[in-house]
C-alpha cells in the first residue's frame, strides 16, 4: 500500500517550535497519524488496551505472590524436565520461548514479502509462523498436563502457595488464548493471501470491506505483541 507522506505544504511552511509543533502535528487535518490506515491505528490502540490487561494480570500475580504467607514453589525445579537422567531446569520453557521468538522472525519476513506483493512467500511464511505458534501452544498443553499430573491445581499444589497454580494457569492460559487466536487469524489470512483476495480486492465475508494487503502487517503487529508479552511472563513468572 502506498504510504501517504505528510505532504502538508501549509504546515511545513510555518514551522512552530517545540511543544507547539508537536501539538500542531498531532491535531492537523483529517488524520493524526498520517501514514497509518484505520486498521493499523485500531490495532495499535487495541494493543495499548491489551497491555493494560496483561499488566494488571502480572501485577496482581506479583501482589499475591508477596501477600501469601506460604513459600512460593521454586520455578526452576517445578519447570524442570528429566532428559536422559539429568534434570534440566526450565528447558521446556526455553524451547517454547525460542520457538515463539523465531515465529516473530518469520512473521517479520512475511510482512516484508507482503509489501512486495509476493503471494506465495507471504502465505508460506505466515503458515510457518502459525506452525510455530501451534507448536508453542502444543508445548504449553504438554506443560499443563505434566503439572496437572504432578498434582498442581488452580487451588492447590504439592509444593507451596496455592496462588502458584492459580496465577500459572490464569496467566499462561490467557496468553495461550492470545496465541491460539493469533494462529487462527494467521491461517485465515494466509489463505486469503494465497487465493489472491488482496490483489482482487475481494470483499470480506462479514464486513463486506475490500481485502487489503495491509492486513498482513496488522496481524504481524498483534503477533509481535503476543510475543513481547511472553518475554515479560517468562521473566516475571519463570525466572523470578
Amino acid at each position, binding site marked *: 500500500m502506498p504510504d501517504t507522506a505528510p505532504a502538508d505544504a501549509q504546515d511545513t511552511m510555518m514551522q512552530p517550535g517545540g511543544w507547539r509543533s508537536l501539538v500542531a502535528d498531532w491535531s492537523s*487535518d483529517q488524520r493524526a497519524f498520517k501514514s497509518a490506515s484505520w486498521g493499523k491505528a485500531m490495532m495499535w490502540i487495541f494493543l495499548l488496551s491489551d497491555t493494560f490487561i496483561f499488566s*494488571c494480570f502480572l501485577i496482581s500475580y506479583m501482589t499475591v505472590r508477596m501477600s501469601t504467607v506460604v513459600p512460593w514453589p521454586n520455578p526452576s525445579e517445578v519447570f524442570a524436565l528429566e532428559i536422559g537422567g539429568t534434570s534440566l531446569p526450565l528447558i521446556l520453557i526455553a524451547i517454547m520461548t525460542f520457538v515463539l521468538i523465531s515465529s516473530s522472525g518469520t512473521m517479520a519476513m512475511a510482512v516484508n514479502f507482503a509489501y512486495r506483493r509476493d503471494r506465495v512467500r507471504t502465505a508460506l511464511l505466515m503458515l510457518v509462523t502459525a506452525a510455530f505458534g501451534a507448536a508453542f501452544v502444543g508445548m504449553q498443553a504438554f506443560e499443563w498436563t505434566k503439572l496437572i499430573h504432578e498434582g498442581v491445581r488452580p487451588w492447590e499444589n504439592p509444593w507451596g502457595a*496455592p496462588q502458584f497454580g492459580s496465577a500459572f494457569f490464569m496467566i499462561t492460559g490467557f496468553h495461550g488464548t492470545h496465541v491460539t487466536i493469533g494462529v487462527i487469524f494467521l491461517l485465515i489470512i494466509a489463505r486469503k493471501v494465497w487465493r489472491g483476495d488482496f490483489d482482487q480486492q475481494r470483499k470480506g465475508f462479514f464486513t463486506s470491506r475490500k481485502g487489503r494487503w495491509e492486513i498482513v502487517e496488522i496481524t504481524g503487529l498483534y503477533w509481535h505483541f503476543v510475543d513481547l508479552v511472553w518475554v515479560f511472563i517468562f521473566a516475571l513468572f519463570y525466572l523470578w
Partner: protein
Amino acid sequence: MGDVADAAGAAIPHPDSEEDDLYHPHSWLTKYVFSQDAKVIGVQYSLTAISIGMVALVLSWLMRLQLGFPGTFDFIDPPAYYQFITMHGMIMVVYLLTALFLGGFGNYLIPLMLGARDMVFPYVNMLSYWIYLLAVLVLVASFFAPGGPTGAGWTLYPPQAVLSGTPGQEWGIVLMLVSLALFIIGFTMGGLNYVVTVLQARTRGMTLMRMPLTIWGIFTATVMALLAFPALLVGAVMMLLDRLLGTSFFMPSLVEMGQQLRYGGGSPILFQHLFWFFGHPEVYIVALPAFGIVSDLIATHARRNIFGYRMMVWAIVAIGALSFVVWAHHMYVSGMHPYFGFFFATTTLIIAIPTALKLYNWLLTLWRGDIHLTVPMLFALGFIVTFVNGGLTGLFLGNVVVDVPLSDTMFVVAHFHMVMGVAPVMVIFGGLYHWYPKVTGRLLNETLGRIHFWVTFLGAYLIFFPMHYLGLLGVPRRYHDLGQTAFVPDSAHTLNAFISVVALTVGVAQLIFLFNLFWSLRHGRNAGGNPWNATTLEWQTPETPPGHGNWGAAQPVVYRWAYDYSVPGAERDFIPQNDPTAVGMTR
C-alpha cells in the same frame, strides 16, 4: 466538493481510504436491527441503556421506600435491600451512564460532528452493541436466578462478595462478573471505533483543535475507558476464579460458621486497587462527555463562543490523565501508609484545578451571553449547579482526615449522587432535548420539558441535599434499617420519609419525559434541519434525520472552529463550521 482549494485540507492527498466501501444495507433487518450505521447503533444503545436505567430507577424507589418507612414493606428484607443497592449502583454507573454517553451519544455524534460518513469499522461497531445487549440480558437474568442478584454492593468487595452470607452468592455474583466482562468486551469494540474515528477519519479541515468539545469529552473518556476497564476485567476474572474454582487471589484464610474455609493467602486489598483503578476513572468517563456536551449546549443556547476553547481541551485531557493517579482516595479507610494517603489526597485536590478552570470558563461563556432558557439550556445550568455542589463535597472527602469519619455515611451518598448521579443525568437530559430533533426531525414538547426539568432539578436537590446533613449526623450508608441508634435523632427519620416522598415524585416526573419521547415522535413541532441555529456539522446535514452515509454526495469541508456565535460583521448570529465566509475563527 472534492476540488475545493481549502488551505487546511487540499494538500493532503485523499488517502487510500476504506471510506469508499461504506456498507450498504439491503434489507429492513440490516437497516434497522443488525444495522452497521452508527446512528442506528447509537439509538439502539440509548434505548437499551434507558430501559435498563428504568430498572435501576425503580430499585431506587424500593430502597427509598424502605429507608423512609422502615418496617412497612415486608418484601424488602435486608438481603433484598442489598440486592437493590447493588444492582441500582452498578446499572446506573456502567449500564446506563457509560453506555449512554459513549455508546449512545458517541455513536450518534462522533461521525456526524466530524463530517465522517460512519465509524471506521461499522461491523465491529455493530457487534459492540449486540454484546452490550447480551451483557444487559445476563445482568437481568441474575434477577431470576436462584438466590437472586448479588448483594455485594456495587463495589463487589471480596471476600464478602464470594461468601455465603451475601445474597446472590450462588448465581448473582457469577452473572454479575460475567456480565461485566461481556460489557467490557463489547465496549472495547465500540471504543476502538470511536477513538480511531476521531483520530483518523475526520473530514477535510476538521483539525483536532476545531472539534466541538462534545467530541473532545467523548474521545478522552473513551481512551480512559480503554485503559481503565482492563483493571476491572482482570478483577472480574480473578474473582470468578475465586468463586468458581476456589482459587485464593482475593481470599484470605477465613472462618465461616465455625468452619475453616479452603481459601487462604489472597489479598482483598488487591481487588480494591483493581476496582478503583477502574472505578475512579469511571467517574470521569461519565463526567468528561458531560463536560463536553454541556460546553456545546451553553455556547449554542447562549449564542456565545466558548470561553477559552484551548484551555477547555487541555483541561479535559489533564483531568483524564490525572484521574489515573487518584484511585486510592476511595481506600483511605482500608488502611494504607500515611505517605500514600498524602500522595493520593494531593493528586485528588490537584484535579480540582482543571475542573475549576472549566467551571470558570462556562461562567465566562454565559457572561453577557444572549441566554435562551430553552430546555437543554436549563438542564445545562442545572448541571453546573449540581456539579459544583458535588465537586465541593469532593474536596472534603479527598482529604484523609475528613474522609475517615465521613466514609460510609450518607454524606458520601450525597456527594457521589450530586457529582456523578444527578449532574451527568442532567446533561443526558439536556443532550436528549438538544439532539432529539436531529434524530427524529421533531422537537420535544417544550412545556412538558420545563415541567420535567423543574421537578427533576428541584427534586434532586431536595433528595440529595439533606443527605449531607444525615451523613454529618453519622447515618451510615448501606443500612437496611437504622433501628434504635443513640446518635440518630428522630428528626432524621422524618427527614428520611420526606426524602423518600420526593424521590418517588421525581421518579414519576421521569414518566413525563418518557411520554414526551414517544408523543413528540408524531406530534412534536417540526424541527427543520437546524432548530437551534447551531454551528456544528451535525446540524448541517442535507437531510434530517441524516440519511445513510450522512452527507449525500460529498462530505462537508470545515473552515472554522465550532463556536462562531454572534460574530460581529456576520449576517447571522452563527456561522456553521462548513461555511467558507472569511469572518470568524477561520484560522
